[in-house]
């Protein structure tokens, strides 16, 4: 019975007089009783087991995907770091830059390295945010397909006159 946060009569009182509100609240309560008298059937146990199994499969697939995404991102980050360090080490082939003398590093090179690192982190964060592959627009293809079919049907009718 859905009365959890409502004082229906008081709510209705904001829109009608006391007598009408009392009557309308009684109507709503009687309607609720009617719905309780005719309970809907319950889902069968087999269906619930199937749903749980499907959920479980989906969670496992998500975990697997996240594992691989993390590995790929980690490898990509390592490659970028190594490449950047090598670039700095050789200093463009003219001025050698040595580890342990960070203060002597070229500012532009450090900025570039940071930008690369930020880009990798951003990618990682966005991949994590979408790690379970939810796609709000997934249903859109079906909609577009139906619209196209609809247009075809309309065109067919047009040529038939």
């Amino acid at each position, binding site marked *: 019975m*859905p009365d*959890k*946060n*409502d004082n*229906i009569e008081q*709510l*209705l009182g*904001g*829109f009608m007089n006391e007598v009408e509100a009392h009557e*309308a609240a009684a*109507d*709503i309560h*009687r*309607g*609720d*009783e*009617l*719905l309780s*008298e*005719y*309970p*809907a*059937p*319950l*889902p069968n146990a087999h*269906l*619930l087991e*199937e*749903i*749980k199994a*499907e*959920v*479980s499969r*989906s*969670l496992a697939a*998500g*975990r697997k995907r996240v594992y691989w995404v993390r590995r790929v991102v980690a490898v990509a980050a390592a490659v970028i770091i190594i490449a950047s360090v090598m670039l700095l080490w050789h200093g463009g082939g003219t001025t050698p830059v040595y580890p342990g003398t960070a203060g002597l590093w070229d500012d532009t090179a450090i900025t570039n390295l940071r930008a690369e690192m930020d880009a990798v982190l951003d990618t990682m964060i966005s991949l994590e945010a979408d790690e*379970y*592959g*939810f796609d709000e627009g997934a*249903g859109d293809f*079906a*909609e577009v397909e*139906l619209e196209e*079919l*609809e247009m075809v*049907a*309309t065109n067919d*009718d047009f040529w038939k006159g």
Partner: protein
Amino acid sequence: MDDREELNEIIAGCQRRDDAAFSRLVNAYSKRCYGYFYRLSGNAETSDDLLSKLFMRLVEKIGSFKGGSFEKWLFTIASNIFYDHLRHQYRQKRLIEARVKQIMEETPPRPTDSEMGDKLQQQLSKLDDDTAGLIMLRFYGELSFKELSELRGEPIGTTLSKVHRGLKKLRELMGGTNA
């Protein structure tokens, strides 16, 4: 542990992608959600599909639940799934109508199972979709009028009026059996 604490624990588990927590969520909400789908679709097979779709959608979206009324959040998703289904059914119907009218004559838009000799189901289908949806959302979602009006994006007076008129009409259609 009270119900609220238990629910919070289940939700936290689901957000950690824990199988067992999702299982508990299915146990906790499947009956009400199934009832909601069943009363609106009037068809057991459709309700089975929509219930599965709902829980799969929850797996995807549970991370976006940021607190507040879980029922309101859950039944908003359930309601979206049902209306997507209705739209899809309507589009399909139009397409099929354009192609093969004779098939549609044998397939009513809201089929009724034989097991639904249940009088309420028959009378419920005589209410308009919007009112029936609102009544079922309130009954099975156990939502307050405030939550309902927020969910529908309409003034609370409109929601009150629709539910009142709808329930009154339903009682009249049922012959005022419990008056």
